[in-house]
């Protein structure tokens, strides 16, 4: 009876060790591995052999295998990272050239670092999110939303979108508020297509509302593009958010397991 208890304990400990494997590997081979380990344990126990040395060897061998499989997984995922870095560098070449050739264009090291980090983060976010569902509409929707979010951030970082005495609050709401709604919405939706659609609709609504308040309050009055340039810009972003939301909705309908991630 005590032997059965110790076998169960060792099996539970081995199950914990298996959690070190990459998830995809664990889901595929975790159960058969646990069964095999248990079969081997029972065999040794039935033969009355020392379980300690055997278990130690099994755990060491499996630990080494988890390191190997994680290494393989990291190697497999390194290529997209290299691609993202390359694209980031390529895009940064544009302002670098502009720094030398365009009068009045003067980016400092800080600008390059911030925009480089945001570009890399956007690319990484696209890779992590889009790779979770193998549907072209979902990927296009993610790409569209992230690209628009990046452009919105860049425009605001470059010169601010809304000018005037309340520009800090106005831009915080217009850019930060919209992006925060999207981020929180994506978290709540756990990246599922249908939930993402609602997050994007919420972003569109937030941006339209903030723009409406800004126009009504005349926050940016006095700016050369006020109010039509601002209204058109808002219209473009709202259209993009809604377009992305519709693509997410379509992705949720196209998936056999509606709304479920792979």
């Amino acid at each position, binding site marked *: 009876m005590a032997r059965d208890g110790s076998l169960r304990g060792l099996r539970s400990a081995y199950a914990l060790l298996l959690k070190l494997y990459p998830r995809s*590997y664990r889901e*595929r*081979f975790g*159960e*058969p*591995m646990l*069964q*095999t*380990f248990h*079969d*081997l344990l029972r065999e040794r126990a039935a033969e009355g052999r020392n379980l300690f040395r055997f278990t130690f*060897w*099994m755990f060491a*061998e*499996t*630990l*080494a*295998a*988890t390191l*190997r*499989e994680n290494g393989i997984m990291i190697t497999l995922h390194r290529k997209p990272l290299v691609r993202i870095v390359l694209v980031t560098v390529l895009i940064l070449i544009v302002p670098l050239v502009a720094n030398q050739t365009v009068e009045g264009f003067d980016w400092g090291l800080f600008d390059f670092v911030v925009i480089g980090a945001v570009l890399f983060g956007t690319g990484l976010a696209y890779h992590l999110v889009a790779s979770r569902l193998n549907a072209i509409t979902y990927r296009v929707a993610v790409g569209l939303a992230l690209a628009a979010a990046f452009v919105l951030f860049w425009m605001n970082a470059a010169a601010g979108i809304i000018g005037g005495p309340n520009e800090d609050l106005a831009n915080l709401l217009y850019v930060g508020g919209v992006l925060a709604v999207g981020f929180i919405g994506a978290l709540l939706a756990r990246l599922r297509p249908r939930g993402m659609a609602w997050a994007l609709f919420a972003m569109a609504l937030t941006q339209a509302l903030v723009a409406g308040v800004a126009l009504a309050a005349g926050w940016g009055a006095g700016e050369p593009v006020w109010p039509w340039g601002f209204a058109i810009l808002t219209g473009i972003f709202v259209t993009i958010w809604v377009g992305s939301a519709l693509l997410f909705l379509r992705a949720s309908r196209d998936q056999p397991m509606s709304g479920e991630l792979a």
Partner: protein
Amino acid sequence: MAKGTSSAPLTPAVLHILLALATQDRHGYGIMKQVEADSREKVSMGPGTLYGSIRRMIDAGLIRESDKAIDPAMDDERRVYYAITGIGREALAAELQRYREVVAVAKRERLSARGLAHGA
């Protein structure tokens, strides 16, 4: 190891797993026991090595997962069985042919294990 490279040399673990599956489908524990028996207990794999090899062999098309089934010789737990594929059989046949050719060379040169061990 990619599909279509069935004539490439096999690692010892892959060779032994293919040999174990050549006669019948087996679950993980069954493969281990068969490998031990085939190698007269000279080759012993832990679950980490075994299932790492199984993953690569499935990806290469050498073996495939069969349906879960109960092993009547064991308990009533359902187990995943593994089966050799056509590509796996070709790879095994090519590897065994390589071994035969190596043994033929050794015979032609009158080399024996005992003689080599004694520096003859």
